[in-house]
Structure formats: C-alpha cells, structure tokens
C-alpha cells in the first residue's frame, strides 16, 4: 500500500472541511478524487502535504507523514501540482523548472530530465527564458506539471489540471499525462471536477461530498453507478 | 565724588558676602538638608553624543554629596531626557519647575531647546543657569534677567579669529566651512562682524554642510578651488577630523583656524593624523586631557581620578566630560557664595557677582567675571597653535 489515509480531519481556522476521510492507493495506481465544488477535494491534497491543520493518520510507503512539514513530505517523493498552478511569476520558465528539482541529490541527472520534460512540452522550450508570469494559462499548467515531474516523484498529486483551459488543450494535456503514466512509472492522485475526463483516465476513483468519502471502487464500477451517472455524468 | 561710588559698591558687595546674612531664607527647592537642581539633556535622539555632560555633572554632585554636600545640604540633581527636541524640553522644564519644584535649572543643553524655554523661565522667575550652549543671546540681562550663559560664545570666538586674521594677514582670501545650524551660523556671523566692512571682500567662499552628510570632502574641494589661503573650519569633531585630513591629502596649505568645538587632540587630531594637523590654530579655555602638555597638571590629575571613581564608564578623551565637570565646579562656587540665602534672586545675584573666579581646569589666565550687565562668565580664550605633538599657547588672552 503506497498511500494510506485513516480518519483524516482538516480545518481552515475554526471552519472544519474534512470530516474523517479514509483513502488508499497501491504503488503504480492512478486514482481519481471526484466531487462537486467545495466538497473538499483540494483540501484533501493540501492536507496530504501538511499545508492545512489536520488530525488523523497519513502514511506513505509505510512511514507516518502526517506530523511532518511540507518541505520534508516533498523530500519523500510526493510532488504536488497545486490549484492555481503556483507559478513563480517573476522567475523565468527554466528557473521554475530547475526549482522543481531543488531537493534532488543527483545534480547530474537534472539536465537530462530538463530535456525530457521539454520533450513532453516543446512549447515550454520556446518560452524557457521568458518570465513565467507572462505565459498563458495552458502553458502555466504545463509548466506546473513539468516542475512536478522534475522531482522524479513516486506520487504525483494533480489539482484540477483542466481548470480554466480550452477543451482542445485539456485533451492534449491528458494525452501527455498518459504518455507520462507509461514512461515514468509514477502513481497519480488526480483531483478533477469533470468526472468523465477523470474516470476514463484513472483505474480507481473516490467520490467525496461535503468532506466525506461516499463512494469508492474501480473506475468502471463508479461510471456504472446510477447516482454518479445522474449527478456527475449528466446522462 | 565720582571716586567714592565704586568704593561704596565694593563695600556693599563685601557686606553682601555670606558672613553678613545670618538667618536662612529659602525658595521652593531649597531646605536645610537639600538643594534641588533641575536639568534637561539629550540622552536620546540625534544629539545623544552630548548625553555624557548630564552624566558627568550627576557624578560630580554625587562626589560633592559624599563630601558633605554644600553647607550641610545634599544636592539632588534631577535630569530629564529631552532628545534635543524643543517640545519635549518645554514639557520637561515645566515638570521640573512646577512638579519637582526645583530651585533652578542648570546646564540645560542646546540652543533650540533653551530658546523654547527662554520666555517661560523668565516669566516664572526661575534661574536658567549656565546654559550649555555657545549662542550669544544668553548674555541679555536687561530682557532676560533669569538666563545666564557659561562658556565663551561662538560669536566672540568668530570675532577673535577675525581679529587675528586682520593682524597677521590683512589681505587674506578666506574660505569658510560651517555646519548649517545655529552654532555654525553664530560663529560665522562673529567672524563677519569681526572683519567688519572688509568681510565681503576677504571671504571668498562659504560652504555649509549638513550633519547628515557622510563627508565634507566635496566642500573642502570647493574651498580649495576658490583660491582661499585662509581656512576657517567651523565643524563638530567628526567633520573636523575629516576636514583636517582632506586639506592635507589634497595638498592645500591654507592658514587653518579650527573652532574650539572640534579641536580636541585626542578625539579629532589623532584620528585625522597628528602630522596632518601641524600649524592648526584654535582657541581654548579648558585644559585638554588628551594634550600631553597637561599630562602631569594637578587639576587634570584630580579630574582623571574623579572620573575613574565616580564616572568610570565616561570616556576620558571626550571633551564634554571636562566641560561638564568645570561647569559643575562653577555652580558649586555660586552655591557656596549663596550660603544660607537660597532664594532664586540671590542665586542669580551670586552668579552675577563673579570676580575673576578661576576653576583649576581652565587654562591659565582665564577666569570668570560677571556683573549685573554681563551675564557671560567666560569670555576670554587663549589662541593656540598645534606643533604636531601638542598645542602651544601664543599671544595674550583674547576677549574680556
């Protein structure tokens, strides 16, 4: 079991958002976390990275990580592509990418990874010396994903990669995600609003509503479930 | 008949001396056991360098009290910090006069702070004694009978330099560097008044500087460029040292008059480099501890012993400590003269009847004389020239 979450509570100040969720992921699995706006999807990812006050246990590859600081969790190989993409606006595109590999010990391999990432997103190579703040929404999303890949993570947390992108760009992005899935042997926890998109990408899925897990199973079971079909797939 | 009057005056003065007054008379702030003296001083703020004057005076009174005080009365010296800000000086002076009920204020420091309380003190008829500033306006008994200066004022110092220039180099071309505040402008005005009508012709360039300027190098270059062959240097210690060094470094060889405020051997000429200060002329009225000439002078030795015992954290090289000590000794004399008649009117009267009184830390030949229409105790200064090791007196005592 790569990731195991038991009875996770999380709150912003005095308002509680997560009411004790349980979650599990095997090594290599692609899991989607579905739910309406404000259900607690983003909070879950932030809770995993200790970016919000939590109680309950989270263990990764057998080690407890719920008490640790964000910077230490990242060092274990968990990369997080945050909502709003977290771009370093005043730094150049390449500087953003180099920061992704900040914690890595194998300095010599970084150049190679840089070219590999440029392979996935040739557009980023054209913009490498440009201030990241001036990139388009789509390009910033690619940059955020690439920055996460520069860490050579074991677990990739993706927070609504499709957010604010044109449908054609989203398709292109998910095609690249599939290529990454084959090439990188990395597990992914994908938070997405558009259930259809997520379900045909992931192999397992969880459904979260108002801070509680209400449904879990393989992607096919979830897609066949009537309640899900009616409220999330719209047919 | 005319000859008799002065003798009568002398007799009256003698009569008024302590022995004659038997019964004790007190004003608020004086009692059988205590004399309360008030003071304001910049312990904080931009002028906190002068805070040491307040501290050395307090140390002197501590010593005085240990030696039995004055006529059996202990001195309680109440000093407040005004951060050299006039509004705070007014507040602190009112606290001393109205709340602490001190007998008088002594050595309040700085021209702007003292100007702020000038009218108030005279309206309240509380002596503002021996103010620690060199402005010339404190010697005005007619309008301000309760305010008295102490040190030689900057205006007189300027006049003395002018007199010496006229004597030694009548067709000199003078360059002046001065600090852009009341002290600097007062001394400059004294220089111009001393030169009289020839001032406009002789002064070829005036360069001012702000205390916030990092250096005065630019001004020195301007003065050299003006072709001046006499340099009057009106600066405080830090800028004085910079000026002495820069004048030497750029190879400018004027007759260099350095004002008293910035002429301490230890804290100005040593940092500037003694060899660069050869030939500098200044006026002096106090013995400078850092000048080797006074190394084994008894008065300076007692002062150093006093400092070690009562004010050890004080810096012996800081001229302000000798200044405060000498002022405190002057006051001690005034209080002894007043005896048991500790009324404010008598304090001013005694302070205004100094006849050539000498404190041993003053230069030889310099003494304090005051009268009903002369409220400036020290008006004489001695011209000195620096020979590379120490200052040498030359010429006679200048001024009253």
């Amino acid at each position: 079991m790569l990731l195991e979450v038991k009875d996770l509570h999380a709150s912003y100040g005095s308002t509680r958002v997560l009411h004790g969720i349980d979650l599990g992921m095997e090594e290599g699995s692609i899991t989607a976390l579905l739910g309406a706006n404000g259900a607690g999807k983003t909070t879950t990812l932030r809770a995993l990275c200790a970016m919000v006050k939590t109680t309950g246990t989270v263990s990764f590859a057998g080690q407890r990580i719920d008490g640790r600081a964000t910077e230490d969790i990242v060092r274990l190989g968990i990369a997080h592509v945050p909502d709003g993409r977290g771009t370093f606006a005043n730094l150049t595109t390449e500087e953003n990418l180099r920061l992704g590999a900040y914690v890595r010990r194998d300095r010599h391999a970084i150049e190679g990874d840089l070219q590999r990432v440029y392979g996935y997103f040739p557009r980023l190579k054209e913009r490498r010396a440009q201030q990241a703040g001036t990139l388009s929404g789509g390009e910033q999303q690619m940059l955020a994903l690439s920055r996460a890949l520069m860490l050579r993570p074991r677990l990739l947390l993706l927070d609504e990669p499709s957010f604010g992108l044109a449908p054609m760009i989203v398709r292109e992005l998910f095609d690249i995600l599939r290529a990454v899935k084959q090439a990188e042997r990395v597990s992914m926890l994908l938070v997405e609003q558009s259930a259809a998109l997520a379900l045909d990408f992931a192999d397992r899925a969880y459904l979260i509503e108002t801070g509680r897990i209400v449904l879990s199973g393989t992607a096919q079971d979830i897609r066949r479930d009537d309640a899900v079909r009616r409220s999330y797939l719209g047919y | 008949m005319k000859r008799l009057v002065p003798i009568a005056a002398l007799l009256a003065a003698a009569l008024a001396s302590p022995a004659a007054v038997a019964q004790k008379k007190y004003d608020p702030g004086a009692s059988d056991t205590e004399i309360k003296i008030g003071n304001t001083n910049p312990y904080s703020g931009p002028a906190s360098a002068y805070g040491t004057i307040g501290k050395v005076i307090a140390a002197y009174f501590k010593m005085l009290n240990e030696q039995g005080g004055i006529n059996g009365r202990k001195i309680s010296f109440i000093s407040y910090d005004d951060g050299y800000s006039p509004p705070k000086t007014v507040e602190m002076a009112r606290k001393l006069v109205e709340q602490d009920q001190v007998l008088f204020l002594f050595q309040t420091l700085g021209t702007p702070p003292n100007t702020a309380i000038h009218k108030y003190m005279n309206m309240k008829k509380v002596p503002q004694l021996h103010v620690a500033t060199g402005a010339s306006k404190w010697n005005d008994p007619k309008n301000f009978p309760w305010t008295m200066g102490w040190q030689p004022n900057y205006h007189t110092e300027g006049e003395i330099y002018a007199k010496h220039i006229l004597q030694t180099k009548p067709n000199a071309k003078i360059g002046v560097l001065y600090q852009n505040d009341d002290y600097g402008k007062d001394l400059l005005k004294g220089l111009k008044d001393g030169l009289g009508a020839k001032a406009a012709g002789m002064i070829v360039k005036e360069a001012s500087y702000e205390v916030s300027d990092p250096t005065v190098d630019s001004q020195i270059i301007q003065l050299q460029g003006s072709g001046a062959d006499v340099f009057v240097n009106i600066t405080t210690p830090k800028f004085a040292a910079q000026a002495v060094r820069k004048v030497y470094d750029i190879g400018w060889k004027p007759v260099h008059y350095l004002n008293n405020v910035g002429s301490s051997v230890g804290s100005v000429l040593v940092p500037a480099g003694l060899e660069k200060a050869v030939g500098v002329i200044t006026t002096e009225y106090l013995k400078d501890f850092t000048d080797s000439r006074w190394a084994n002078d008894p008065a300076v030795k007692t002062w150093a012993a006093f400092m070690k015992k009562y004010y050890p954290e004080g810096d012996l090289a800081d001229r302000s400590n000798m200044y405060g000590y000498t002022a405190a000794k002057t006051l001690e004399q005034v209080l002894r003269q007043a005896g048991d008649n500790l009324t404010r009117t008598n304090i001013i009267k005694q302070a205004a009847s100094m006849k050539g009184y000498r404190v041993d830390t003053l230069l030889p030949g310099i003494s304090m004389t005051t009268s009903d229409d002369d409220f400036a105790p020290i008006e004489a200064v001695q011209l000195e020239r620096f020979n590379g090791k120490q200052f040498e007196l030359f010429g006679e005592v200048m001024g009253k």
Partner: protein
Amino acid sequence: MDAFLHQVFAGLATGGIYASLALALVMIYQATHLVNFAQGEMAMFCTYIAWSLMNAGMGYWPAFLLTVAFGFALGVAIERLVIRPVRHAPVLSTVVVFIALLVILNSVTGWIYSYTIKPFPSPFPASSFLGNRFMSPHELGSIGITFIVLALLYAFFRFTPLGLAMRAAAQNPESSRLVGIRVGWMLALGWGLASAIGAIAGMMIAPIVYLDPNMMGGILLYAFAAALLGGIDSPGGAVLGGFAMGVLENLLGAFVIGNELKLGVALVLIVGVLVVRPSGFFGKVHVTRV
C-alpha cells in the same frame, strides 16, 4: 576643469559608500520584499565589533573575516528572534520593528563605546599604486571590494540553486514549500547575507567617515535612494544608483545650487526619476496577470 574632476572623483568615492550599503538593502529586499531601516545600524554595530577585535590585538584580515561571520550570525539571529514573531502581522508592524532595531542598536552602541569618533584602519596601504591625486587608495580599494561583493552576489543568485531558492521563497512561499524549499531558513539566510554585506560596507566606510554610532544615519537615506534609483531588485542597479547619487550630489552641491539645498534637490530628482520609471533604471518591470 580640475575642480570638476575633483568633484566627480569625490562623488565616486561617496557614491561607493552609498553603493556598498545599497547592496545590503537590495539583498534584504530580495529575501524579504522589505527595505530594512536598521541595515545601517547593523553595519555600524558589526564595524564596532571589528574595532574591538583589532583593539584586542587581532590582525586586520582575521578580524575582517570574523566580523563578516559575526554579521551573518547577527542577521540570522535577528530574523529568528525579532522578525519571525511578526511575520503574520501587517507589513507596517515589521517596519516598526525595523525602527525599533535602529534605535536600540544606535543607543546601545553609544552606551558601550561612547560617542567619541574612532579611527578605523584601512586594508589598503597608504601610498599604493591605487591612490592618485583625486582619490585615496582606500576609496579606490573599497570601490573594488564593492564590485567584488556585487560579482559574488550576482553569481550566487544567478548560478547557485540556493540563490534561486531564496528568490523563489521571497516571491511565492507556498509554491516554494511545495518544491521542498525551507522558506523559514531562506529568510534567515537572506538576513544573514544582507547583514554580512552590511558589515563589509561598514568596514569600508569607517576609514573614510570615522567610526561613531551615528556614522550610518545620513548614509542610509542616500543608500535607500540609490537602491531604488537603480532598481530595488537589481544589485547591479543599486551599485550604479549609488555612484550616480554620489556624483549627482557633489555636482549639484558644488556647481548648481550650493550645499544648502543639496540634500533636498538630490531627493527631488530621485522622486522625479521614480515617477517616470517606477521600478528604477535597471529594475525588472513586474508583469502580473490579473
């Protein structure tokens, strides 16, 4: 003509003073996005430490290096003990903390070391090839050291991952944590480096203006102006800004409006420049998508 050259070189000398402190101001800005009012007093305090070490018999260069290390430690300590507690308070609280630091350091130094000026040795021999009629060897030498520090700083930010991490932490703390940067320590590092640069600046300035607790008072304003004139986030801009300030101030004072209004007019020019180019000459114009 000779007088003009003299003034220009004297301006470069004072400009070097402003540039060295401006560098420290830019350094602290890049790490914290704040301009530290107490930077001058911190530099002055470190210079007194160097003076005490030399007074106790230590050689110039060992004392120099030890003081730079002390400066670094002082900066880190101030960040950890004094700045961190107010990191969530409104920005102005931090400005008040800076003012408090300024006042405390100035007053305590005056109390410990008294206010008499102290000569401070120069590492450069008095009559070396460096010196010429216009500038003393020390003035030229200190400008040299300022450029060396600038080069080191440039290399540090440009080529080391640590430098990049520091700039990232200052700009976007949350994303920085997500790539593993210990944001808290980056701030401490920024303060340490700025304080160390300040210590170097102090030791270069003291021989020129003499060491006293109020040594840095006036200089801070000009350094502040130089840093912003050149571009608050560009070390190179700050150094050039410093030299421009020094020469501008001297020429204005000597030839244009006399010394009485030099300070005011120099500053009015700064405001004029900023109104035209709000991020200084060499500062990067920040484009943010709304």
